[in-house]
């Protein structure tokens, strides 16, 4: 019988996780191979794999994947480099927060995708435009979330640091930053996931390479197998980067799990 909040064993957990993928693909195969859905609208799994193989071997899809990854990482790294220090300053110093917070809260709701036409006007259809879309999509989110995390640092730890002789800057450097480092890493992991949706949007319009570009090209040819393959590749890369991020956090912050 299922009991609420009862933990599940490691083996069972992995098996259950995999089995839903199996169920999903089986349902897909049943609908397409069984002839219930037209091939024009949805390719079957086997066609999808064959198309994917062809993309990789004959059409240089690996290059598109590499381009997309580089755009996501490039835009994301720039956004993080700006947003993390600003977020820490805002969380630590209330006047700085009062200065930036209203604007950042407003800017956060501006959809990055709506900027694509404008950014094409400003920056053309080169790499700068792609990076800017990701930058705009990520930077405000990171700033706000980091500021909130830092602002919620345990007060008693800050007080303890003061009674041990820490200066105000010392409190930022030796309490606020290390106390929130794991939280900040979690925020970056989360926002990186969102950055993936922005890059595809940026590549759908005015692009000559990348996974998004391939998907829009395939649409013109009604190659649903290729489109689905592209989408699945994005999902897989997301999964891998998520695992990498989690492993990195465990490595960097052993005190959290100790």
């Amino acid at each position, binding site marked *: 019988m299922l009991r609420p909040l009862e933990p599940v064993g490691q083996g069972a957990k992995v098996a259950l996780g995999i089995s839903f993928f199996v169920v999903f693909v089986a349902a897909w195969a049943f609908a397409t191979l069984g002839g219930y859905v037209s091939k024009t609208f949805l390719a079957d799994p086997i066609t999808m794999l064959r198309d994917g193989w062809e993309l990789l071997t004959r059409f240089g899809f690996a290059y598109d994947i590499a381009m997309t990854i580089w755009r996501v990482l490039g835009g994301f790294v720039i956004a993080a480099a700006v947003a993390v220090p600003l977020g820490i300053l805002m969380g630590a110093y209330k006047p700085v927060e009062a200065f930036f917070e209203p604007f950042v809260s407003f800017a956060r709701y501006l959809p990055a995708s709506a900027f694509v036409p404008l950014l094409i006007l400003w920056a053309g259809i080169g790499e700068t435009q792609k990076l800017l879309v990701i930058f705009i999509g990520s930077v405000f989110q990171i700033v706000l979330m980091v500021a909130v995390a830092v602002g919620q640092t*345990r007060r*008693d*730890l800050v*007080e*303890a*640091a*003061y*009674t*041990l*002789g*820490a*200066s105000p800057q*010392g409190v930022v450097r*030796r*309490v606020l930053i*290390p*106390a929130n*480092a794991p939280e900040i890493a979690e925020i970056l992991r989360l926002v990186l996931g969102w950055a993936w949706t922005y890059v595809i949007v940026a590549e759908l319009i005015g692009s000559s390479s990348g996974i998004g570009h391939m998907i829009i090209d395939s649409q013109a040819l009604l190659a649903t197998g290729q489109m689905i393959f592209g989408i699945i590749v994005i999902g897989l890369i997301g999964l891998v980067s998520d695992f990498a991020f989690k492993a990195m956090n465990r490595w960097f*912050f*052993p*005190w*959290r799990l*100790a």
Partner: protein
Amino acid sequence: MTGKLLVDGVSRVFPGVRGGAPTRALEPARLEVAENDFITILGPSGCGKSTLLRIVAGLDRPSAGRVLLDGRAVAGPGPDRGMVFQSYTLFPWLTVAENIAFGLREKGVPASQRRGTIGAYVEKVGLTGFENHYPKQLSGGMQQRTAIARAFANDPEILLLDEPFGALDNQTRALMQELLLGIWERERKTVLFVTHDIEEAIFLASRVVIMTARPGRIKADVPVDLPHPRDYRMKTSPHFSELKARLTEEIRVEAVRAAEAH
């Protein structure tokens, strides 16, 4: 006897919440602490004893009055007044050794010298072998022992302890009292220790200061003339029981008053 610490007419009024009447947490209090004295402040919960300690630490500001340490007015928190809190305030990202060295690092003490101090205090609080553990891996008692070592290692002029053993079970608490007293008997620091536990107040102190129920006021100042070194057997001696009976009476009146006020 020179006054190390002088609490001079310190009071604290917290502003009313949403138009309510302001709360008088602490009535003007005067307290003089001699060098190397161990003072316990005893009172029912909510009597403002923690507020008084936080004002001495510089973590809270008095509404009136001033605190003088060695004749200088206290303006904010500083390393000359070390503090041990009731909540576990070890830095979770630092090991036991790094926690103990926190203040020393802030002062710019070189690493080689820090190692010596860490080693000495790890041994004094009985945590040898746990230097590289993270706080999460320690029991509550071990965490508070580390916090005590961290405060002592910083070599403050006065040590402020705010019910440091309040969250511990009775047996651990008794051991911690002996440990703290043992360190004090050797190092002779000036200590201000807040508690609501009568036995703890007598066992540790050379003077027990009793506070009244809210608004907090210093009601009595009882010297404890039990000899040093003290150990747990003293808690059952006739003289100890006599003191305990007397303080119990004093504090009971306040507890009753506090209960009636709510």
